[in-house]
C-alpha cells in the first residue's frame, strides 16, 4: 500500500496527517499564506525572479529552470494564457506524484496559484493519468473545497485575480506525459507530440500561450515563497537546489519513497535508506531516474543524485525513480521488458521510433531465447544511434538510452547469451 515517505522534508512532512489533505488542515499548517503573499505583496516579475534565484528545476524529468520557463510566457497578449499541470506520471519506477496528489493536494494547488499569478494564466488544466482514479478523486475534492472557499474562481482570496483549475483524466498513454503530447490530449486528440517550435509558451493548449509544469515542481513553489531563495538553496547542490522525493523499487529491503536533498549519494539511498538487497545478495545494477535513464553498475553508485554529477556517468536524474537489480538479474531480460514497453508506447508518428523500438525489442528477445548472433549487438547499437536525436520528441532517445546503458555496462551478459545460445541466469526474475 502506498505509504508516506520513510524520510520526509518540507514537501512531505505533514503527509502522515490526514487533516493535511483538507483545506482546514492545510490552512492550520499555514497553507495558502504563500499564495496570499504573492498575490497581494509581489508583482508577477518578483515571483518569477524569486523562483529563478532559488534555482528550482522542473521535477518531471528534464530538469529545466522553472523560473526561466515561466518568463517565456508573453506579457503583452490579448489571448488567454493557461497552465498545464503534468500529473500523467507514467515513467516506470516513478510514483512520487501519486503521493503528492493523495496526501498534499492543496500544497500543489497553492503552487499552481502562485505560478498562475507569475505568468498571468487564467486557467490550469491538471492532466492526471487515467489509471490514477483515487489520486484524481483526492485532487478533485481539494479543488471543490478551494472553489467553495473563494481560493479558486473569479476572485481569488478577494484580490480580484481570476483562476480556475480543471482536472482532466487521461486514458492510458505514456506519451501524454511528453508536454506537447499532453497538450494534444487536452484538446481531445491522439497524444502525438508536436514539432517545436512553436513552443508551448507561444502556442500551447488550444493554441494559447501555455506553461507545462510537473506536479512536484508546483509543490516546491509555496515553500520558496514563504522561506525564500537562500533557504531553498540550503538543500541540495549549488546547481541542483532543493529536495526531491525519490522512489526506490526492485530488489531492496525497504522499497518506498524518500524525500532527500538533491545530491544525496545513490549508494546512501540504496544501502542506508532502502536497506540494500535482501538476504545478503549483492547489487548488480541500478537505474537511477526512471526507466528511460541508463543503468549504472554496482561500481558506480558513489554518485550524487543531481544532474551535473549523473551526466558525468552518462545518465540522468529523470524522475528520481530508482530501480535496484540484484546479482541474480539477467540484464537481457531487463532489456526485453524495457524495449517491449517502448515498442508498446511509441505513438507511431516518426519512423525511426515506430520501427526502431520494434527492432530493438525483437533483437533482445531473440538473444534471450538463445537465437542471437554477435552481429545482433552491433545492429542494436546501430538502431539506437539512428533513433537518438532524430525524432519529433524525446521518446526515441528515452527508448535508446537504457539499451545503450545496458550494453555499455553489461555487454558481457548479452555476449554470454550468444555464446551459450541460452539464458545463463536461471535464478533471474521470470519473463
Amino acid at each position, binding site marked *: 500500500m502506498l505509504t508516506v515517505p520513510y524520510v520526509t522534508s518540507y514537501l512531505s512532512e505533514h503527509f502522515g496527517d490526514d487533516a493535511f489533505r483538507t483545506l482546514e488542515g492545510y490552512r492550520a499548517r499555514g497553507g495558502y499564506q504563500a499564495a496570499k503573499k504573492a498575490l497581494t505583496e509581489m508583482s508577477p516579475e518578483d515571483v518569477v525572479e524569486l523562483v529563478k534565484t532559488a534555482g528550482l528545476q522542473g521535477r518531471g524529468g528534464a530538469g529545466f529552470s522553472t523560473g526561466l520557463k515561466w518568463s517565456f510566457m508573453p506579457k503583452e497578449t490579448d489571448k488567454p494564457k493557461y497552465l498545464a499541470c503534468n500529473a500523467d506520471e507514467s515513467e516506470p519506477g*516513478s510514483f512520487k506524484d501519486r503521493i503528492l496528489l493523495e496526501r498534499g493536494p492543496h500544497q500543489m494547488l497553492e503552487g499552481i496559484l502562485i505560478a498562475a499569478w507569475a505568468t498571468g494564466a487564467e486557467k490550469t488544466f491538471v492532466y492526471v493519468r487515467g489509471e490514477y*482514479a483515487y489520486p484524481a478523486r483526492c485532487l478533485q475534492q481539494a479543488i471543490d473545497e478551494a472553489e467553495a472557499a473563494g481560493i479558486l474562481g473569479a476572485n481569488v482570496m478577494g484580490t480580484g485575480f481570476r483562476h480556475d483549475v480543471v482536472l*482532466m483524466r487521461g486514458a492510458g498513454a505514456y506519451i501524454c506525459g511528453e508536454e506537447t503530447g499532453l497538450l494534444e490530449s487536452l484538446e481531445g486528440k491522439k497524444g502525438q507530440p508536436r514539432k517545436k517550435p512553436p513552443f508551448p509558451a507561444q502556442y500551447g493548449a488550444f493554441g494559447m500561450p501555455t506553461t507545462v509544469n510537473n506536479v512536484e515542481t508546483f509543490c516546491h513553489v509555496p515553500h520558496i515563497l514563504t522561506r525564500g531563495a537562500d533557504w531553498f538553496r540550503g538543500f541540495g547542490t549549488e546547481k541542483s537546489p532543493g529536495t526531491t522525493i525519490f522512489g526506490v523499487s526492485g530488489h531492496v529491503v525497504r522499497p518506498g519513497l524518500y524525500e532527500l536533498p538533491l545530491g544525496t549519494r545513490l549508494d546512501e539511498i540504496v544501502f542506508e535508506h532502502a536497506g540494500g538487497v535482501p538476504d545478503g545478495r549483492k547489487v548488480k545494477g541500478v537505474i537511477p531516474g526512471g526507466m528511460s535513464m541508463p543503468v549504472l553498475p554496482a561500481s558506480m553508485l558513489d554518485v550524487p543524485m543531481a544532474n551535473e554529477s549523473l551526466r558525468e556517468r552518462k545518465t540522468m536524474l529523470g524522475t528520481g525513480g530508482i530501480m535496484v537489480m540484484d546479482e541474480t538479474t539477467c540484464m537481457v531480460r*531487463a532489456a526485453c*521488458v524495457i524495449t517491449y*514497453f517502448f515498442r508498446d508506447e511509441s505513438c507511431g508518428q516518426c519512423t525511426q521510433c515506430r520501427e526502431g523500438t520494434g527492432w530493438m525489442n525483437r533483437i533482445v528477445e531473440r538473444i534471450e531465447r538463445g537465437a542471437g548472433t554477435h552481429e545482433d549487438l552491433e545492429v542494436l547499437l546501430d538502431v539506437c544511434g539512428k533513433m537518438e536525436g532524430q525524432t519529433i520528441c524525446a521518446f526515441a532517445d528515452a527508448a535508446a538510452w537504457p539499451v545503450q546503458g545496458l550494453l555499455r555496462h553489461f555487454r558481457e551478459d548479452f555476449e554470454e547469451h550468444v555464446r551459450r545460445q541460452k539464458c545463463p541466469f536461471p535464478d533471474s526474475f*521470470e519473463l
Partner: protein
Amino acid sequence: MSLSEQVRDGIAREMAKYPKKRGALLPALHLAQAELGHISVETAKELAEVFEIRPIDVMEVVSFYNMFYDRPQGRHHVYVCTNLPCSLRGARTLMRGIEARLGIEAGETTADGRITLGHEECLGACAYAPMLRVGGTYHEDLDLEKAMQILDGLE
C-alpha cells in the same frame, strides 16, 4: 444502446470547462464508457454528432488510448502491472498463476464474462509490487493467494 440523458448532461458540463468543446472528448468517452462498457461505432457516431466531428475522429482517439475499448469487455477489468519494477518482484510469475487459475490468457475474458485479464504498463505502485488494478482500484503487495482472494470476490 444510445447515450443517456445523464451522460449527455455530463458531457455538456465538461464542455463548458474547455475553450473548445472538443477538449471534452476524453471526459465524454470516460462517461460514455462507464455507462455502456465500451465505445461501439454507434456510440462513436452519436458522440461525433455531439462534438460536430467525424465518427473516425472519435474512433481514432478510442484506439489510441489503452483505457478505451471498442468492443465488449468482461464485467471486471483485471490488469497486472508487468513493467520492470513489478517484474523484478515476481509480477510475471503472478500473472502466470492467475492465468492458470482463471483458465484464460492475458488479453482474454472468462467464459462467464466476469473478468477480462490484461498486462499493463507501470501503474506507479513500484514499491508495492507485485500489484494489480481492478477498474479504478489498486491492490498492492500481492502474492497469488491474495490476488485470487480478490478475484474470487468479484461478482
